């Protein structure tokens, strides 16, 4: 192996600084959330306590954050499941040369690049004019899907671009029906990528702000609640909330990555189980 050059060390240092830049601020509020009861929004630490975390659990102090958390969790799961199912179906569809696939593809790209506030405004206007009730589970749900589905679709494109069609042909040659081929060959092979799609679906929904702003109705999701707090809460309680919800996100991300890793390991050991299910 050849020796490391100077440029390696320079770039490694740059990378280290970049990671520090990414994580430093979050770690800072993580530390500051343990601020003493008299402490403020910046250093120095005025003692160390769990005071601000305790504040979070006394609901009257900061509004309905637990209700908001439950709603965000439910909405995240709804969006996650829908994103996986709809993306897989669309991914399968795009492998065929169906009429209108080009238009649909550019619609999906538009959905990705359109300023979020336009979705919020437009969906809000439609629901208002048609007299529908704006609610996070209807208008909010649909608006968030316009953000998560393009990501799911792009991942499916990446997956099917690398997909070896000979597995399917083998299944078909042995008499599998179209559905059996999908169920027992295609889905098992793409399963690890579906974990990725699910991760995007859940986390993007859980953190979504702009597309939910005018479409969630009278009950806030967690990001909306947190943003509301930034205008009227001036204590470290907001750091405590930030720390908790970031930890929750990290937990979810860790679980998904672990699942993908285990699946990859098992596959490496056992080989593909494609076709065994028939």
């Amino acid at each position: 192996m050849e020796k490391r050059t100077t440029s390696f060390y320079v770039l490694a240092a740059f990378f280290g600084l970049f990671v520090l830049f990414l994580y430093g601020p979050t770690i800072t509020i993580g530390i500051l959330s343990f601020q003493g009861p008299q402490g403020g929004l910046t250093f120095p630490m005025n003692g160390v306590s769990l005071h601000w975390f305790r504040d979070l659990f006394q609901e009257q102090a900061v509004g309905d954050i637990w209700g908001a958390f439950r709603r965000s969790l439910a909405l995240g799961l709804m969006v996650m499941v829908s994103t996986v199912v709809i993306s897989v179906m669309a991914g399968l569809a795009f492998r065929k040369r169906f009429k209108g696939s080009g238009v649909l593809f550019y619609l999906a790209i538009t959905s990705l690049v359109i300023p979020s506030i336009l979705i919020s405004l437009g969906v809000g206007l439609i629901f208002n004019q048609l007299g529908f009730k704006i609610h996070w589970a209807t208008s909010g749900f649909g608006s968030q899907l316009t953000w998560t589905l393009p990501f799911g679709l792009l991942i499916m494109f990446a997956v099917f671009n690398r997909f070896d069609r000979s597995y399917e042909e083998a299944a078909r040659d042995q008499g599998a029906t179209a559905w059996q081929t999908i169920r027992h060959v295609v889905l098992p092979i793409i399963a690890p990528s579906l974990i990725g799609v699910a991760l995007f679906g859940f986390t993007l929904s859980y953190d979504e702000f702009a597309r939910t702003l005018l479409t969630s109705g009278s009950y806030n999701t967690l990001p909306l609640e947190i943003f509301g707090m930034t205008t009227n809460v001036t204590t470290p309680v907001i750091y405590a909330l930030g720390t908790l919800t970031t930890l929750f996100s990290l937990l979810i991300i860790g679980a998904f990555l672990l699942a993908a890793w285990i699946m990859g390991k098992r596959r490496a050991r056992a080989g593909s189980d494609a076709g065994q299910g028939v």
Partner: protein
Amino acid sequence: MTDLTGDTPPPETTAAPKRAGHGLGANLLGWLQAAPLTVILVGFLVAPIIMIVIVSFWGATEFSIYPAFQFDNYEFLFGSPVTYRVFLATFKYALITWALTLCIGFTVAYFLAFHVRSQTMQIALFLLCTIPFWTSNIIRMISWIPFLGRNGIANQTLQDWGLIDAPLEWLLYSDFSVILAFVHLYTLFMVVPIFNTMMRIDKSLLEAARDNGASGLQTLRHVILPLTKPGIMIGTIFVVTLVMGDFITVRFMSGSQKANVGRLISNDIALLQYPSAAATAVVLLATVLIIIAVLLRFVNIRKEL
């Protein structure tokens, strides 16, 4: 890489006549599978855009909006010097953020792709860069306060070192903090596509360049950079559109002291002036789509995945 709707006829013909590919059967199955996506995109993307275009011609009183067909909203929009100033500010944010995220993102991706040798390490470091993307943007903005504030870490450190006498006021609630937050939030959108394209560069090309006497810098300039262009374009599309359409970062990081087009729209919404907000939204959308259309001429997204 096969094009998804490419030249080979689709093998998925069990439900269709054998010669098919363009046949009704394949089309039908394709449509059925694409139906849920289509329904969502039509209902929550196309319809809202149409609605916004319609409402942009409506009129408004202080409390309500009423159907009409008038150009008042557009006349007001284009007649006001504020509009041009705000659009200019939006372009400025987009351009500066783009340049910074490109430099940082390219360097980070270059390090990951060509200097990290073990694949496990590559994946681990790549994930380290992507994890923040899956956490809350709002929290990540809030977390700059203890750093940039008047009594924040940055000011105190600089004062301790004797570099400044009084706290710098422009660290927080300024263009500086807005752009810092943009770079913080969106550099990832450059790193991922650039890294993705770099990983597909055939390593033997680099060896060939070196064997022919190219220096590291020459290889970078004449081999890697041209081959990375598609990734750079995709990253550019992401960063530019995210910054152009943003309103919350500008509002929060500037303490409501700076404006961009997104804030113009959200202010109108807050005042229930939906037709006026819709007109601004139409102009913003047209601007963004023109930029994307230009950028898409340089890259075929579906081939790059």
